[in-house]
């Protein structure tokens, strides 16, 4: 049991990051989702197969909680004015252009349909494979790929400037 507690605890930072990206607005709503996920996991620990992927199991629980009760975790309208979230922008403000694009991206994420947003975040942020995301969200791999494609297209269209940065 000790081991199970540790395995769950190790995933909390990732669960929080995902919830924060999924739910725009009040941070406490995102942490509510994480808390509910932990409670659900703890009461159903017997459903977890020892040795299987703890992250995938917790993300499945969290995904289902959110999808089944989106309204509960949404704080009013899904759009929150940018002024409220300046503290989300990393860096010291020296690179203003980049900060502005990030801010715009953050807002644009919220305009994605939920089924595209969650898949984009699991692939881009969590680095999960398509097959794993398909299993977590309960849709075929082909659907994961097309939703991911549409999510990236949408963000590309909505952003006023390309995202800066050097990549290899």
């Amino acid at each position: 049991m000790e081991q199970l507690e540790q395995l769950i605890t190790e995933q909390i930072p990732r669960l929080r990051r995902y919830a924060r990206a999924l739910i725009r607005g009040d941070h406490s709503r995102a942490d509510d989702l994480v808390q509910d996920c932990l409670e659900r996991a703890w009461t159903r620990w017997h459903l977890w197969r020892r040795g299987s992927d703890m992250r995938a199991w917790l993300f499945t629980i969290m995904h289902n909680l959110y999808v089944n009760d989106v309204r509960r975790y949404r704080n009013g309208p899904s759009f929150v004015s940018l002024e409220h979230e300046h503290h989300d922008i990393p860096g010291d403000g020296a690179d203003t252009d980049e900060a502005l694009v990030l801010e715009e991206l953050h807002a644009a994420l919220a305009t994605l349909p939920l089924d595209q947003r969650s898949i984009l975040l699991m692939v881009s942020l969590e680095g999960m494979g398509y097959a794993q995301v398909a299993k977590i969200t309960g849709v075929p791999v082909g659907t994961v790929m097309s939703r991911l494609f549409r999510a990236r297209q949408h963000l590309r269209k909505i952003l006023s400037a390309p995202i800066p940065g050097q990549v290899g």
Partner: protein
Amino acid sequence: MKSGQTIADLDLHAYADQQLDRARRAEVEDYLAHHPEAMAQIQEIRRLDQALHSLFDPVLTEPMPTTIQLPWIKKRVLLRAAAVVAWVGLGTVLGWGLNNLVGFVSSAPMEAQLVRPAAFAHVIYTAEIVHPVEIGAEEEQHLIEWLSKRLRTPIRAPDLAASGYNLVGGRLLPSTDRMAAQFMYENTLGQRVTLYMRRGAWDNHATAFRYSQSRGVGVFYWIDGPLGYALSAELEKAELLKLAVLIHPQVKP
């Protein structure tokens, strides 16, 4: 499939996401070498990924908010608090009865003045999410000086980092007839142990470790010089003993 043939947008995404098998990856790489616009698309995907990380990775290193409660700790604390309340209540009745029937019992002072108050203080304050301590570890020097002054004897907060426990802080407590000090420690799993100390009728004695346990709360206790010490935790006896052994030399007068 020959290189250069039918490389679709979805293949480019799958390539950027490292979802292709080796053969298909080689084909896409071959295609990219001759199609700069496809390469630009890959880089755009990667920049988006990076931007998402820039936005949300800071969450990974944030301290855990106090609003998130580990469900296993919450549940155990409630059960054990109930058990200890019952235990303390029963002890009080028995102790009162014994004292009246046979007079002073030599082991009674440690049990009544040290072990039971320590265990009770342990369950009360380790369950606290918002105010587990009165003065936090960031003001350790001040905490030590203050408690030493109030208990009228120099006290120390032992270093338990070797066992993975870090000082959360401490507080002053009323005990049965004197003041007591409590230090709280916590590990990365959120498990908490407390060290309780106070003066008593046992002034300037020394004893070996003794152990007492009730429904999951274990207490190792001993006397050394002017103070009695009680270490409490919801841990196996062997684990708790390791901590007691680590503490004992550090608090020796």
